[in-house]
């Protein structure tokens, strides 16, 4: 589905991403973890076209999509959600999703058809009771859900979810993870960034670990949990060494 080769991004002299390569197969949920500043959001921004990579290549279904603008990527089926939700605040929940139905891959022209399609999506994600509420009036959990619903309405092949469970309660997180699994069942491939290890381990088929902009490891969740390098990246080598030396 998605192939990333040698992706590199410099911000001034700082390498936010250094020679990162991986491949996401179709219909999988790929998790991306790493300490703060590891480059996870930069990676997503580069794939979704919000920033231009300094070097490297991104291919979606064999087609080179490196450096494409976000709105063209949407038409190629690559869509992201934002870590900090960005709803169209005073538009209703329905209108928010309707916009995506109009301008996504389906490119629905008639407003009534777009509204119907948006309504189906909202029912599917469980936001039906609040369709006419202004997006800004929703509690955070529903806003996160709306962010996903809006991305879904563009009919993506690859959905990039950036911390969609951040700040949610345990129950809300469980529901969100269920939603992710259901999205995958529809045939959408998912790339998922999250700080909550339990959430990532529970839902992902495969995990890529980033540290200081580089790929540290990748593998199945249980492999990652037992990877010494990964544990050190999170807890720090010096701390462990210092303890053992007394």
């Amino acid at each position, binding site marked *: 589905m998605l192939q990333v080769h040698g992706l590199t991004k410099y911000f001034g002299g700082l390498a936010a991403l250094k020679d990162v390569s991986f491949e996401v197969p179709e219909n999988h949920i790929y998790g991306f973890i790493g300490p703060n500043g590891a480059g996870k959001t930069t990676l997503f921004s580069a794939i979704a076209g919000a920033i231009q990579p300094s070097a490297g290549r991104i291919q979606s279904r064999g087609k080179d999509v490196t450096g494409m603008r976000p*709105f063209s990527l949407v038409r190629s089926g690559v869509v992201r959600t934002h870590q900090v939700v960005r709803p169209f605040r*005073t538009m209703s929940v329905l209108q928010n999703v309707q916009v995506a139905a*109009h*301008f996504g*891959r389906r*490119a629905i022209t008639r407003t009534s058809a777009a509204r119907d399609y948006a309504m189906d999506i909202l029912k599917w994600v469980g936001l039906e009771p609040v369709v006419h509420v*202004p997006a800004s009036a929703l509690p955070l959990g529903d806003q996160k859900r709306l962010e996903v619903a809006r*991305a879904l309405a563009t009919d993506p092949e690859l959905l990039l979810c950036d911390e969609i469970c951040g700040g949610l309660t345990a129950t809300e997180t469980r529901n969100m993870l269920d939603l992710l699994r259901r999205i995958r069942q529809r045939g959408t491939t998912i790339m998922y960034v999250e700080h909550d290890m339990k959430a990532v381990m529970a839902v992902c088929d495969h995990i890529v670990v980033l540290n200081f902009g580089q790929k540290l490891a990748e593998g199945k969740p249980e492999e990652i949990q037992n990877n010494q390098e990964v544990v050190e990246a999170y807890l720090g080598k010096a701390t462990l060494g210092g303890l053992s030396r007394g």
Partner: protein
Amino acid sequence: MSAITTSRVKSALPWMVLAALAIAPSAGLTANIVRLLFVTLVWVTTSLAWNLLGGFAGQVSFGFAVFYGIGAYTAAKMIDAGIHPLPSFLAAGAMAAGSSLLVGVPTFRLRGPYFAIATIGVSEAVRVIADNLSITGGASGFRIVEHRPFRQLEHYYTALGLAALAVMVSVVIEHSKFGLGLVAIRHDEEAAADVGINPFAYKLWAHAVAAALTGMAGGVYARYAAFIHPHGVFSFQTSVYILLMPVIGGIGTVMGAVLGGVIFGIVEEQLVANFPNVHLLLYGGLLILIILVEPDGLVGLAGRLWRRITRHHGATDVAGPRPDEILRGTGGA
């Protein structure tokens, strides 16, 4: 009153205003009042046009005098050359729309207040250039000689037809995919791009439609005035007037743009006549007052009163950040 009937009434209001203006001349008004209403209709058109870009798409431009002036001069030159007014007005719109691309391509790379400042620069540059070109007549202006009999009502109904066109275009855009895309851009350009909207292209389109209407309004005005000069049609004051009207009436709504245009058109001359030295100061003060006290303009004020009377607390259907947010460039941040 249910939400649906309320919105029906709201969408009928602009047409009711135009209908009143259509029958007004038959009420035996003096030629001077008809002239005043003619000017008002021209202002209503520009107000609606500005609202497409400034209200729907949230791009505050101080540069609409450019299109008004280009339209005025295009129509003036063609009518003076003996061409029928109608194709002259269409050409005025086309010229203005074409020039909107020249203005828009560089300035739409800027956001919020930076875009606004850039449009001031463009507007002033165009005025200075127009002032020094022989084709405009320079500072001494240009007199239009039309070899047709002058009939005031013909001018009046041309302006009314154009205003009706502007209302129609606004209403169609408001309820279309295009309009929803513009409102999404007003909220958050990045989020809009993330659902597949090309913000740059959409802003250029909205700008072009707005410029075409403004250019035609300039042309209709020029034909009536029969004398135009760069300090009038290209002036910064013209740009401010065009921006002020939708703000008075209620930014981002069709009714607000109409209402603002009507009120401004009727009181503007009185203000200039009574306060010749400070009328610009009054507009500045008014602008600040509206943004601080009632950012949604008269439409917002009316809506608030209406809700107080009927104790109706349903979801508001005004889709957009508040105008003070638009003007400060912080909408959707």
